[in-house]
């Protein structure tokens, strides 16, 4: 028995009349790669822990975690209690909520940096990081790494992106992931015009097997940045607190000059942070940068509760263990069915791909769709996320469902799986 989505479709029809794309961005059917759309729900009615229920009442074990924010479990009681308590005291007020100081102290202590600057979304803080780098170094150019994603601001886009100007994209270089020699050559030739090297801790691009850094990669990049007066910015928005509670730069044995956090920082309450070293505090203080809701109290209170819970438990170990368990189960089924399933990335952020002759993802997309229709919410283009509320029982249920879905896909393609 697979799911049906009558109320979801009805709601999408209403949404499409008054909202661009019905649901826009990565949660929408287009950017969210819901293929085919008939396999996917569009709207959630409630969520708890690792599960969510759509407006038709279908239950899903969710491995997207809101694309990362859900790190403790949806509606975590301690985080929500802290948020509600702050709501009763003060939220968006004329003066900054006092809890910001608590949060900044806790965050800087957690990620071993000297200051924190709070905004709302990941793109707010990656943009700020680049502003800081340009102001501090007096140099214009940014170095990106292939398959990068640092938000949707014009400086991150290509000139052919609607609304982006060619001039927005001029001050940049792009290098291959894990290619230190290319970076070394680029820095030697153009180091006097490069402000920063910005990268995620490992390559977790979409539609591509995710790739960890080669042995010594980050240490060499760190040294090259220091040698050439180039700031090293780690975009930890997606990985943050899933590899290492102290930040992914520490996980890989280096120290970034600037590091960005968002998603998991407050378990779904809206706050992002740019954290940095003391020598950059004056630079960031000099840049006019603010927003109406950036110093809102509720997310700070939620952030304090989230960080305390992450620090006081073996959060990273648990998420890794759950990721390993689900990946092992899927790999076993795939092997039995002779399906070439590739699993890559960190176990707590695993990426899946069924290989095919043409590299067109069609078999993979069919399998994912069969999973979703049976109650396991995973995607065909993006890495997944585990979280603290995930249990071995839920993981085993996931494996059972995903294995059944894989069998269906295999049976539908006797021309491939003989």
């Amino acid at each position, binding site marked *: 028995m697979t799911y049906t989505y009558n109320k979801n479709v009805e709601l999408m029809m209403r949404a499409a009349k008054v909202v*661009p794309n019905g649901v826009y961005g990565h949660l929408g*059917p287009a950017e969210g790669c819901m293929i085919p759309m008939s396999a996917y729900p569009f709207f959630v009615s409630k969520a708890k822990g690792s599960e969510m229920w759509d407006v038709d009442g279908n239950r899903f074990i969710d491995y997207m975690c809101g694309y990362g924010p859900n790190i403790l479990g949806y509606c975590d009681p301690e985080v929500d209690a802290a948020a509600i308590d702050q709501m009763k005291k003060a939220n968006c007020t004329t003066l900054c909520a006092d809890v910001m100081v608590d949060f900044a102290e806790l965050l800087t202590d957690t990620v071993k940096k000297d200051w924190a600057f709070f905004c709302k979304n990941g793109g707010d803080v990656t943009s700020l990081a680049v502003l800081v780098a340009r102001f501090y170094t007096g140099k214009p150019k940014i170095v990106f790494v292939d398959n990068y994603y640092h938000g949707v601001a014009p400086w991150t886009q290509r000139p052919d992106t609607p609304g982006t100007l*060619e001039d927005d994209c001029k001050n940049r270089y792009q290098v291959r992931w894990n290619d230190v020699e290319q970076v070394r050559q680029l820095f030697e030739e153009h180091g006097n015009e490069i402000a920063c090297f910005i990268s995620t801790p490992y390559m977790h691009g*979409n539609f591509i097997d995710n790739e960890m850094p080669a042995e010594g990669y980050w240490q060499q990049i760190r040294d090259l940045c220091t040698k050439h007066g180039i700031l090293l910015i780690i975009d930890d928005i997606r990985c943050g607190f899933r590899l290492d509670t102290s930040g992914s730069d520490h996980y890989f044995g280096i120290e970034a000059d600037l590091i960005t956090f968002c998603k998991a920082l407050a378990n779904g309450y809206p706050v992002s942070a740019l954290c940095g070293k003391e020598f950059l505090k004056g630079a960031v203080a000099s840049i006019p940068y603010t927003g109406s809701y950036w110093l809102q109290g509720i997310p700070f209170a939620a952030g304090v509760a989230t960080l305390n819970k992450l620090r006081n438990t073996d959060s990273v170990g648990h998420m890794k263990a759950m990721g390993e368990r689900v990946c092992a189960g899927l790999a076993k089924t795939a092997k039995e069915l002779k399906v070439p399933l590739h699993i890559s990335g960190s176990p707590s952020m695993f990426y899946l791909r069924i290989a095919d002759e043409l*590299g*067109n993802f069609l078999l993979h997309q069919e399998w994912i769709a069969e999973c979703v229709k049976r109650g396991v919410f995973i995607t065909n*283009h993006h890495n997944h996320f585990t979280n603290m509320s995930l249990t071995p029982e839920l993981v085993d249920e996931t494996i059972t469902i995903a294995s059944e879905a894989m069998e269906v896909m295999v049976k539908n393609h006797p021309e491939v799986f003989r």
Partner: protein
Amino acid sequence: MAYSERTQAFVNLYAGIGVLEKYLEIDESARELAKQHNVAIRFLVKDGPDGVVDIKDGACKVYPYDEESKANIVLYFDSCKKFNRLVAGEDVMPIPLKGLFKVLKLMAKPDQWFNVLTGNMADLMRKTEFADEAEKKLSVTLAFYAMTLGAVALGNVDPIAQHAMRATVDGEVALGIRDVAYSTILKSGGKDGKFTAILAKSEKPRAIMEFADIDTAGGVINGTLDAMTAVSTGRLETKGHMLMLDNFNKLAAILPKYLS
């Protein structure tokens, strides 16, 4: 994004005129008209395209000129702008390097054979109100093929659109209007490669984009329905290597500036 006369000239030749191939294939009256003459016209545009429109026995091929090409008319334009003005129907006189008498006979005046043929097609493609469903189907189908040809021309020559071409991985993008028309954009040569348009169904697609019906295709192509909304409402099916389609959509977003 800045408008480019050079880009316009390539789109005009390979998409605007290039879609004659399908027009003559699909429309019987156009094919009968085309059968009146066999002619190969080379459009040689300074700093722009150099291509041949080859009409023979009621069928048409449009291709880049090379030494093997045989043209019995050669028209030289000293700028892309002048060529574009000619395609827009303005009174422009190219320099006939070869076939002066054929030029005078077939295309010197608006009511002469070649201009009638291309003018009929352009009128049909620009229509927004139709005599019947068949006319609408023909108009949208031609616009669909012109979109394919235009996207390829854009990706190969336009400085901004080339970003999308370079970022597209090698392989076939299958485009279609369900049960009506299909085309393929082939990317080859990696980051320094090129697009090739194939006005037939892809056999080995890496990405697939298919309009559910003529109305959806017409709406998206003429800009009255945005592609994302069409996807969200299930009227435009997309699957496969979605980054290839993301790049195609970037081309499609630029195209209306040049193909209207």
